[in-house]
């Protein structure tokens, strides 16, 4: 009987212990660990505070856990967010800080609600979005509020696009969404049309796509296209720009070799009519030169070196540091962002490290940079990891240099069985013959190397999983369709 009382005492003690532990967990924000964590990097925090809202389409879905200067880059602010797992952002979600801003006459003021409340983080996920972000991803946020393009039926503005304003006497029927044309090719669109402050002209905001922004120089001449009758009875009548009757557009002309490319915020005056210029004949040499020699690497392939560093926290032993170098392939995704496809064993310590006590590693800091052959080193964030154990990940470049060459979409092959010779290539070596049945070791020199067949990229050299160092060709077919180049 008395033994039973001791047993009851022990059981009560255990029950009290378990109860106390649950209360402790509850009180030490353990419940927050169910939330989805993501770090977004911004150039400026705009007074954002810990505990501020994270909003999706205006609805609070999470909170800001931490605002701090990034460990590995003192020019950036890392904002750590905890988001309701039902609203996990996608890899193409856009993050920005909502704070009071005056964007100029044309864009008006935004974030006025934060005059009377704290700034908050908002994000936008397109309706047809890509796969969800992996937990603890580091992504790059937008410095300006992202405008939901579905509201005005506009294309989303992308990183690197030229934003400029045009000043004209009147709109000539121009409206938001109309085209901007260069030599007849659509290179951008009209974002807003508004009366100037003093009312003596109109201000037209333009967006020129990143691909074509170098066609605008400080010597470019702009006009608002409208039908125009010219000539006299004697010489006969001619109607210019008849097409503009149906849909007005903005045109410009840049004399070859004149002027320098302009920066964002460029202002230009639009003339009322297309300048009458006699175009010089096309140089014969153009027939021989590559069609577009600026944007694409010489052989259409841009391999880069991915440099990764991480610190894993150990409770009882000194912290472990990981430093890896690997190859990756640089391309432009559907959103116009510079993306590097590489292996997880080269950019995700949680994948390849193991805790001393064989638990999940506790990664406390990570940094990624991408070295581009030729010297430039660009910081990057990890935007996607394969959800299974596939050794595949994507990094997004934070501030890519203008006109950075990238791999042509045609150099990728997502088909099942391409034909041709197998070759392997890293960021620093030329293509060498490769036997997929005997891939050889995965080391610092070959990790993430591009495996090609018939000259087209089919996969990367990676590992079977994070810990087994057995080499395997990770097929790029595992990349979700939305994330593939040029999709």
């Amino acid at each position: 009987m008395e033994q039973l009382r001791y047993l009851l005492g022990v059981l009560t003690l255990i029950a009290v212990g378990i109860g106390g532990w649950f209360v402790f967990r509850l009180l030490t924000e353990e419940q927050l660990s169910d939330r989805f964590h993501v770090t977004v990097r911004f150039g400026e925090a705009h007074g954002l505070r810990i505990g501020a809202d994270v909003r999706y389409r205006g609805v609070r879905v999470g909170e800001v856990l931490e605002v701090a200067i990034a460990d590995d880059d003192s020019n950036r602010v890392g904002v750590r967010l905890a988001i309701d797992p039902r609203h996990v952002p996608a890899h193409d979600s856009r993050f920005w800080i909502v704070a009071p801003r005056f964007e100029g006459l044309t864009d008006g003021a935004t974030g006025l609600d934060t005059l009377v409340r704290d700034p908050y983080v908002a994000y936008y996920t397109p309706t047809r979005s890509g796969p969800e972000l992996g937990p603890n991803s580091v992504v790059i946020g937008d410095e300006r509020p992202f405008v939901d393009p579905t509201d005005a039926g506009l294309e989303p503005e992308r990183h690197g696009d030229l934003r400029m304003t045009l000043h004209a006497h009147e709109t000539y029927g121009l409206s938001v969404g109309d085209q901007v044309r260069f030599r007849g090719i659509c290179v951008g669109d009209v974002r807003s049309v508004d009366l100037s402050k003093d009312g003596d002209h109109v201000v037209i905001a333009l967006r020129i796509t990143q691909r074509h922004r170098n066609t605008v120089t400080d010597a470019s001449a702009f006009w608002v296209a409208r039908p125009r009758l010219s000539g006299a009875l004697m010489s006969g009548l001619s109607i210019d720009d008849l097409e503009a009757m149906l849909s007005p557009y903005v045109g410009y002309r840049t004399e070859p070799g004149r002027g320098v490319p302009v920066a964002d915020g460029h202002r230009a005056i639009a003339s009322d009519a297309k300048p009458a210029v006699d175009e010089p004949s096309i140089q014969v040499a153009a027939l021989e030169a590559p069609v577009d020699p600026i944007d694409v690497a010489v052989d259409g392939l841009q391999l880069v070196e991915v440099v990764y560093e991480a610190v894993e926290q150990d409770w009882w032993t000194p912290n472990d540091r990981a430093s890896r170098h690997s190859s990756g392939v640089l391309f432009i995704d559907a959103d116009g962002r510079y993306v590097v496809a590489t292996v997880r064993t080269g950019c995700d310590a949680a994948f390849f490290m193991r805790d001393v006590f064989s638990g999940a590693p506790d990664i406390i800091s990570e940094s990624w940079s991408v070295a581009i052959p030729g010297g430039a080193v660009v910081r990057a964030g990890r935007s996607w990891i394969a959800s299974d154990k596939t050794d595949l990940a994507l990094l997004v470049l934070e501030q890519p240099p203008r006109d950075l060459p990238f791999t042509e979409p045609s150099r990728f092959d997502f088909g099942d069985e391409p034909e041709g010779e197998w070759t392997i290539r890293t960021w620093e070596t030329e293509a060498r013959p490769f036997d997929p049945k005997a891939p050889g070791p995965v080391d610092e020199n070959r990790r993430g190397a591009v495996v090609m067949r018939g000259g087209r990229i089919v996969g990367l050299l990676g590992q079977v999983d994070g810990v087994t160092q057995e080499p395997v060709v990770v097929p790029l077919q595992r990349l979700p369709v939305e994330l593939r180049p040029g999709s």
Partner: protein
Amino acid sequence: MSSDSRPAITFERFGIGFSTPTGERVILESVDLSVEAGKLYLLIGESGSGKSTILRLIAGLWDTREPLPRMRGKARVLGESVRGSYPETLRGRVQAVLQDEGLLDELSPRANVELGLQRAGRSKRLALGLLSQAGLDQPPANVAELSGGMRKRLAVARAMAGDPAVLVFDEPTAGLDGDSAREIAELIRSTQRSAGSARTTIVITHDLAAFEGLADSVLQLDHRQRTLRLRNPDDPVEDGDESTRGVEPAPADSEVGLHGVRRFLLSFAALATTVGEAFTRAIPVYPAIVIRAIGRYTLEPVFFIVVGCATVGGLATFFALRNNPLEGAFVASVLTGSGKVLVSVLIPLLAGFFFTARVAAGAAARLGTMKRTSQVAALRVIGIRPADYLLVPMVWACVIAMPVATFCGLVMMSVFSCGAAILVAGSTPLGWARAFFAEVDVSDLRFVLSKTVLSGLLIAIQTYHLAMGPKRSGRDVGQSVNSAIVLGIYTVLAVHAVLTLLQFG
């Protein structure tokens, strides 16, 4: 009526002892004894020889927080084994008049006797007769007014109310002068005689003179030889005492078994038992006591609570409006924020603190004193579960009084907050109410109710548990009062923190 020739108490090769930090302390070893029913026995032995242990064995007064003594062989009372857990069927049939009587001092002397009658299923009208029989024809209204001798008489009357088959007295003449002692001894003899063979009376005493010529037999407890034997009351007594002279006195019973992890575990077992009893015996056996407790626990703290809440509500609103950085603007927003935090968090927390400081401290002091003065043991002897008489009324009282008192605090806080808003911002009562309660909804009230009910329940259980621990001195009682306040406040904090987190986290 157990008037058969069956012996009242039998020991067969019975041994009993305690394990102490310094080793085993044996009281009896291999005792074979049969105590015949229907007689008056004196149980004698030197101090610390184990007389009280034998009383606790016969009456089942082991403290559940102390390790049980080690026992061997067989020990039976009225034919039932008292080794291990005490049989509930013996409760009431075996009564004891303890050395400090254990009179319930919150009841009148008559009510004390009536409680015993009620437990035994007898008519309360017998109370006056029993008191008169014990020599208390006109008892005073309060137990506190009784003299030492009268207290003994009242204890006898209450013990008689249960019509016990075995009645044990622990030092009934201690502290009385010779005449009074003789009167009590004669009263005991007369009660034994009136019951005849239906009752066996055992008197633990040192005062052989008072009982001279009254006892039928003597039970001699020999500490040196660890035996208990019967002898004739007329035999000379000295030899036993002479032989033990010079021997180191045995430690007192209360000093044994206090050591180590075992006691710690038993304390947690007792906590589990208390929690279990709070729920399994929740239906009140004594509704009148429950209702009285609810009234007392509500009225005692409510004054402090309303004053405290009125002060906090008035000051919070006053300073919130007064120090509004956007002078004059957003008065409604300031009031809405103040209203939400005051109603759903601050006032319930404050009321919980006041309630704990007032009620838990009072209850711990009262129950601790009852434990210290053997009133709790007396309840068990009468056959009343302390859980029914003390715990359940306290649980009901705390669970009901805490929300009621908190509600009173909320009302008073609202009145003073409204006053402050009128004073500082020139609000109207209606405007104040609209803004102040704009964000307060049913879910807030539900959470306030949950917080107060849960903290009330926990405070009742932990205060009872602390008060029922071993109480050897006034210092122990004082410590249990301190612990009840400190732990109670932590409990209120924890309950509020967890539920607030659940609500808003």
